[in-house]
């Protein structure tokens, strides 16, 4: 039986979709059977980031409404055959997603895949709630700045109260993924420290993803960054995060500025 993972944040544009694709591909590369689901109805983007936009025929709503079989809507990745995508609908109304329908689709996916990764829409409304509802674990994507941390705190509260597990009195494992971390600004003390974010949110750290042009390049091409350039700094951080999700103990490396003096000293080891 597979695990359901929600990638969520509250705040928009912090890197949920990027992280869903990168972690999904990293897990799939490690031999796991992975499906990533886009819950952003009306504003789908995971298909673009994964490079599958030309191949979308059916979507989550078609499956929920019984217009298509699950197997027909799943898009198998062309690069890794253990990675699949279930796209969101671009045209339908998001109210077409019903709780029962979503629960049924997720249950079916759990039978087939080791990991069911749900890319949540921004916000704290219905769409975000549906995305987190069936989660066994959650990755809370946070940028090191005040409004993102505040929204993450809000989302953590919802993970603890509005998920199926929470309703049954069970725990849901929550991990913090700090993204768009800028080593130069960190060195100049212009950015919230990861330690401070961790202390405020008090959930375990899954990883620190540096701000990197490799992320933009990968999305231009339509490939998860972990496939497009596996040796880049953000990819290494995502690969480590994926291993931690699998329960391995991997030391967290704080990205450093390669150009700075400290970076030159430690660059080879940490960047």
């Amino acid at each position: 039986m597979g695990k359901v993972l929600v990638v969520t944040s509250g705040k928009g544009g912090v890197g949920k979709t990027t992280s869903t694709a990168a972690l999904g591909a990293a897990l799939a590369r490690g031999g796991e059977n992975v499906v990533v689901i886009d819950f952003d109805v009306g504003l789908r983007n995971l298909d673009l980031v994964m490079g599958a936009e030309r191949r979308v025929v059916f979507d989550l709503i078609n499956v929920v409404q019984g217009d298509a079989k699950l197997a027909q809507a799943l898009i198998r990745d062309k690069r890794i055959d253990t990675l699949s995508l279930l796209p969101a609908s671009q045209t339908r109304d998001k109210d077409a997603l019903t709780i029962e329908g979503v629960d049924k689709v997720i249950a079916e996916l759990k039978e087939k895949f080791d990991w069911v990764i749900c890319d949540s829409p921004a916000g704290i409304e219905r769409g975000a709630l549906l995305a987190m509802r069936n989660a066994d674990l959650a990755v809370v994507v946070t940028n090191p700045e005040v409004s993102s941390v505040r929204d993450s705190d809000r989302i953590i509260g919802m993970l603890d109260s509005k998920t199926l597990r929470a309703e049954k009195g069970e725990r849901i494992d929550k991990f913090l993924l700090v993204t768009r971390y800028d080593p130069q600004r960190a060195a100049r003390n212009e950015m919230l420290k990861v330690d401070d974010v961790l202390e405020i949110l008090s959930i375990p750290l899954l990883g620190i993803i540096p701000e990197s042009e490799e992320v933009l390049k990968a999305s231009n091409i339509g490939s998860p960054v972990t496939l497009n350039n596996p040796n880049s700094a953000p990819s290494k951080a995502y690969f480590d995060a994926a291993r931690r999700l699998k329960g391995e103990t991997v030391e967290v490396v704080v990205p450093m500025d390669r150009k700075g003096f400290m970076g030159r000293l430690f660059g080879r080891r940490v960047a």
Partner: protein
Amino acid sequence: MSLFDIFRKRTTAPVARDRLQVLLAHERSVIGKSDLIAILQEEILAVIAKHISVDRDAVQIKLDRGASFSTLEIDVEVPLNAKVAKPPTGAGVPASA
């Protein structure tokens, strides 16, 4: 980085532009806004079902949106021992008036 490298380097922005142009052309078109694919599927399957009974799971549908045309592939697995469906009443030979 030499001037030569700058020209040789494969940049990603043109790839992004091409992908977006194709995608948006489809999303803006009338066809892109309708459920045409779903309707086509239903009708094609209905035609097939008139003659043989096929399992919905044995139908694979693939689409590739291109710059000037798309290809729609419908794969129906028809087993050798497929049951010949009874023509639904009303279909087939029209009743004489």
